[in-house]
């Protein structure tokens, strides 16, 4: 039994807290500190969990876990996944839903080696062609969802499979690869102990966070995600932003494909669906940090490396193969539950 009244306990509390009647100043300072701690706790608890996780692993494997090589393994290998998670975030922040981003990434990661390796096209040109193809994928998603108004879940579930099929067709269902050392250096060149691809990911996240927080278009995006009708009545072109989000998602997914080819050198087109869940897990995990209950790029950045820390630790302990799937899946459920609880707490606390 729920009550459908707008004035919740929070409203009551706020009005009383600063109401017209002066109240005896008693427990104020203490509760202010507690409030501050609660504020910190609700935003950065996940970092505490992360440190705890590292400490537990170090305890289990003394002098093995907290090493530079482990850090390199954690931070050096995940940039395609980070790009992919940001691609997912592009649609989630405007309140849309996209399941096809992994398929789009697969297209990009297939087109580049097919053109460059089999047809000897210049690698830069191959990347541009892949990017154009992926933008077309985004336009197709946007057309069906925004122009025709079909459910985004159904459209992107369908196009995810469609793009996967096209990638398999292009590659004849074979693993395709590229050997171009200069191209690999674009991603793998070492900078401050970590490959450039890591820094690209960080820059992308920071840039996206800046866009959302400090630019008019970013604020408009946030409002479209928070309440579409309010945004529309404020004169924002809501459909343009929705369509733009699908196209932006496909561009970032294309970049994720480029990162895969640059760092790994090849791609198995049938593997793209396996990238879907880890990216989603990181995005949802990100809602439990920095801005609790909201999709945000910095949170996603933490989410990716938090999950990778857990997996690398388990792998060092000797578990392998199944660990990755289990950890991503379990992590997703745990993350969404945590975010849900945090959101409820901030509502009633």
């Amino acid at each position: 039994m729920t009550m459908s009244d707008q004035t919740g306990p929070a409203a009551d509390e706020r009005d009383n807290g600063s109401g017209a009647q002066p109240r005896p100043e008693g427990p104020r300072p203490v509760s202010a500190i507690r409030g501050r701690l609660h504020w910190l706790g609700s935003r950065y608890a996940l970092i505490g969990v992360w440190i705890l996780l590292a400490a537990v692993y170090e305890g289990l494997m003394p002098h093995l876990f907290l090493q530079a090589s482990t850090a390199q393994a954690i931070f050096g290998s995940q940039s395609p996944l980070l790009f992919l998670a940001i691609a997912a975030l592009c649609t989630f922040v405007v309140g849309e839903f996209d399941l096809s981003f992994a398929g789009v990434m697969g297209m990009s990661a297939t087109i580049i080696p097919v053109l460059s390796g089999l047809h000897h096209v210049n690698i830069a040109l191959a990347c541009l062609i892949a990017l154009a193809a992926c933008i077309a994928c985004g336009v197709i998603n946007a057309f069906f969802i925004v122009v025709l108004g079909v459910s985004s879940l159904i459209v992107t579930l369908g196009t995810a499979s469609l793009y996967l099929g096209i990638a398999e067709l292009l590659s004849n269902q074979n693993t395709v690869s590229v050997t171009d050392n200069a191209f690999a250096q674009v991603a793998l060149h070492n900078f401050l102990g970590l490959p450039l691809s890591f820094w690209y990911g960080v820059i992308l996240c920071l840039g996206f966070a800046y866009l959302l927080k400090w630019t008019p278009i970013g604020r408009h995006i946030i409002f479209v995600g928070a309440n579409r009708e309010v945004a529309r009545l404020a004169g924002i072109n809501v459909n343009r932003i929705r369509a733009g989000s699908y196209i932006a998602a496909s561009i970032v997914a294309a970049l994720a494909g480029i990162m895969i080819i640059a760092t790994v050198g090849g791609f198995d087109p049938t593997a793209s669906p396996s990238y879907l869940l880890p990216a989603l897990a990181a995005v949802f995990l990100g809602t439990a940090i920095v801005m609790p209950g909201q999709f945000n790029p910095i949170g996603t950045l933490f989410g990716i490396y938090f999950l990778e820390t857990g997996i690398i630790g388990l792998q060092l302990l000797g578990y392998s193969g199944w660990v990755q799937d289990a950890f991503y899946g379990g992590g997703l459920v745990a993350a969404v539950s945590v975010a849900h609880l945090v959101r409820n707490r901030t509502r009633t606390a």
Partner: protein
Amino acid sequence: MPVPARLTVNSLSKTFGSARVLTDVELTVLPGEVHGLAGQNGSGKSTLIKILTGLYTPDPGASYEVDGRAMRLPVRWPDVHAAGISVVHQDLGLLDQLTVAENICVGGYPTSRLGRIDGRRRDALAARTLDRLGVTLAADAIVATLTAAERAEVAIARAMRDQNGDQDKGAGLIILDESTRALSGADLDRVHQLLRRIAADGGAALMISHSLPELIAVTDRITILRDGRLAAAGEPTAELTEQEIARLMVGTSVAAVTRRPEAPASVHRDEVTVTGLHGAHLREVSFSVAKGEVLGLTGLPGSGYEDLPYLLTGARKAAGGELRTSAGTVRLARASVAACLRAGVVLVPERRDRDGLAFDLSVADNISLPVLRGRGRPWFVSRRWQREDAETSARDLDIRPRTPSILIKELSGGNQQKVLLAKWMNTGPALLVLHEPTQAVDIGARTDILRQIQRAADSGVSVLLVSSEPEDLVATCDRVLVYGREVGLRDARATTTDELIDMIYATNAATAGSPA
């Protein structure tokens, strides 16, 4: 004790974190009475109801009795419900596609031995309940086809349903949580009569309402909360006037909003003109609003005038019409919201939760939304002016608390409405269109909002106030137009609320059929 009270709550307090929301509240509802519960937004009313229905746990020390039997706290809703207490929510909670009988019996369908719903017994139970309440409604009518008053009756009948026939006639307590908000005029009277009948049969009702005339008209006694404390504990309503109730709610004497002095004739120059506006439910109308004028617009509910604010601001597509302001001319048939905004026309919509504000974002974010593009650079919007604007607005409109970073959903309804007003005033509009700006806000906030509307006009804005509240219109507007479905707009020339109400009915009397 000869007859135990239907519901007795004593020493009830509730603390959230460090904030005390209710302090030592008591409430007694007797059999055979309609009991009013009043208080401003944020007075603790909703929290009290949530404790009564078991959603919240009160602080230790409270007692809760139904018909003289003590309940264990926190109460469990099934226990309370079994003891005869039921709730009618604000939105009534009806399923439109189902029949009256199906709606009445939801949650307690009579079943056959195999567990199948027994349709005949269900319809009989519904008919018996309706009959007992003196309501004439066909049990097999589809709820979507009913009038507003009939829908309210169905919701009340559901709450007063016989519990498998073993409940005493007339027993029970019905809690109406602002359930009559959507009703007015004859519809409201009908529901009030039903409540009086329930009370006369020995039942009891606890009625939460924002409307003072309603509380006076229908309740026997009234309990008033102010800042989480009792301001009146079951005072006989007959001994109170509206003014006195208002004073108990607010704590100080409410200065009624005074009527503005007539605007000098010389201002009728720079004006906003609307010509030939018509839409799907609105016949063609033309009017103009002078600079600095508050023009009121009203009509009978459902006559179509409610569409006007949205057609005028591009929120809905008009069939035709033209809007002219000093900032430009807009053809409304193909106008977008953006085009209307460029002409300086802004809308404070009725549904602040759905159309007005993003509840999960902060006050500062919401207030700055319409001016982000104009005041920020494409690559950078400073947070400072957003915060400062929000602080200024909070001071001007007395928005509480004055924290720009607080989320909208944490504010009370009246404060949300003030934020919504501030958001659009900040854009420096030529024409401010408001739709029901005082709906479901308390008296204090209502006064603030109406005063702010007048201040906006004084600063040179043309204001169009579209409202179904005759008192607001008479108090605030320089001129009031009344819309009739057959005759279009008529100047009301009313100086009192009664005259205006008469005019609204007179303008619509020409309409074929009786006003529903």
